[in-house]
């Protein structure tokens, strides 16, 4: 059998076999367990330390800027962030700039954390309007971010449930960026740029972000220019944060399958290239 023949056989593999092997690679680690030492990167540690050093009981603006399509990657970040903040008894003002699903995801995650996690871990429910609030969504994110610099109430006359902001203790004395201590962005899209260039640069509020791995490489540039205090990149970043706050969750669990599928993909790239070179660099 000459090398061209081998190359031909290799290129002839049906794509469904590849799909199946990927599927198996995601399932097996759940069943057998996988080694998962997690190395905490500097950008995650910086974010953790920054939040850790904020005074207990401060007010934080937490965003849910993501679509349902990336839930698996970013929801663990939101949960880890909420845990960290609530352990420090911080007040969370939540909002979203994503029309499709943003407000509903905020509702679900916040309510779940407030009623389930808070009771288990902190011993008491977190109360809507006192410990947290969901402002929901307003159209045209640029206008929203700019307008909030002057007054939250102009843009958000009410919360997501149409109750005026003045009727909640949490927002009584909060009406612009300078009234909150930190901006915690969890996002799966380019909105992070707007937060950095509007909220951070023009109104001076410090900001940290958890983003999907697709977005992450870009934001390293903002770390070094100190436009951002820390960064969580993808599920891996979430796992690192879970390790930092000492509460292993979904992201840590997912690192097992993640390891194995990465190996699979690398194997496929190498195999494909072997076929390519054996076959005389022709497709």
């Amino acid at each position: 059998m000459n090398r061209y023949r081998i190359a031909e056989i290799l290129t002839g593999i049906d794509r469904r076999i590849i799909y199946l092997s990927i599927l198996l690679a995601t399932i097996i680690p759940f069943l057998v367990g996988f080694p998962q030492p997690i190395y905490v990167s500097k950008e995650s540690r910086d974010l953790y330390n920054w939040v850790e050093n904020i005074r207990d009981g401060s007010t934080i603006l937490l965003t849910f800027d993501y679509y349902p399509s990336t839930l698996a990657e970013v929801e663990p970040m939101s949960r880890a962030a909420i845990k960290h903040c609530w352990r420090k008894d911080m007040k969370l003002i939540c909002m979203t700039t994503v029309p499709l699903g943003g407000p509903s995801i905020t509702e679900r995650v916040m309510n779940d954390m407030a009623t389930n996690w808070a009771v288990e871990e902190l011993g008491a429910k977190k109360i809507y309007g006192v410990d947290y609030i969901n402002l929901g969504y307003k159209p045209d994110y640029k206008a929203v971010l700019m307008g909030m610099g002057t007054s939250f109430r102009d843009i958000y006359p009410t919360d997501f449930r149409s109750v005026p902001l003045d009727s909640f203790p949490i927002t009584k004395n909060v009406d612009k960026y300078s009234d909150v201590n930190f901006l915690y962005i969890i996002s799966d899209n380019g909105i992070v740029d707007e937060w950095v260039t509007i909220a951070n640069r023009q109104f001076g509020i410090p900001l940290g972000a958890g983003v999907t791995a697709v977005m992450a490489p870009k934001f390293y540039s903002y770390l070094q220019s100190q436009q951002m205090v820390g960064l969580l990149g993808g599920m891996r970043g979430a796992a690192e944060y879970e390790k930092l706050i000492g509460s292993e969750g979904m992201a840590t669990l997912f690192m097992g399958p993640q390891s194995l599928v990465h190996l699979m993909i690398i194997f496929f790239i190498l195999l494909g290239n072997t076929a390519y070179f054996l076959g005389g660099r022709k497709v």
Partner: protein
Amino acid sequence: MNPADSSLIEMSVAGFLILSIFSFLYKDNPFYRLAEHIFAGLTAGYYVGLIYQTVIVQQLTIPIYREGKLELIFPALLGILMFTRFFDRFSYLSRISLAFVMGNTAGIFLIQQLHGLVLPQTQATIINPLAGSWLLGAVPGGMIIIAGVITTLIYFYFSKEHKGVLGKTARVGMVFIMISFGAHFGYTVMARLSLLIGQVKFVAFDWLPRLIGVN
């Protein structure tokens, strides 16, 4: 999704739709098309509910009635003007609202880019090239950053032919760009796989075991 809170019916609805979408991997089929159309319909419906509550009720009705902010009728009219684009004869009227929004966006954008990005990013590049990380030996990180930024800018410089020194610099820029895109590539693969893992976990370990009564 928090499977612990959901009933079996809820999980089954979700699980069925997930499998319908994934069936596209085999080939285009009626289940996929059904899911696709339900999805498109629900998405449009989601917008209707969302805009009604957050804009019509919260941004218009409540402020106008409770606080007497009558001037808010104008943006509402400008918004309605947008719909003239469905009528050929009057479609030009929609430009009025559109231009107002575009002007505002452009103004914000302009300041964002120059003040929020160009200045601070330039400033952050002015660093001591000899300081910084000596990790991986040889070249300090600061030098890498300076060289990378400048050669990348040169690569995207279009006013001169890439020949001679300029060509060599641009070539270096190209290598830098490929390293960065390699990182991007790795990260993107990582992201897509994470999403798959999330879905597989729901179907194979939360929903199916409950459906067949193992759990």
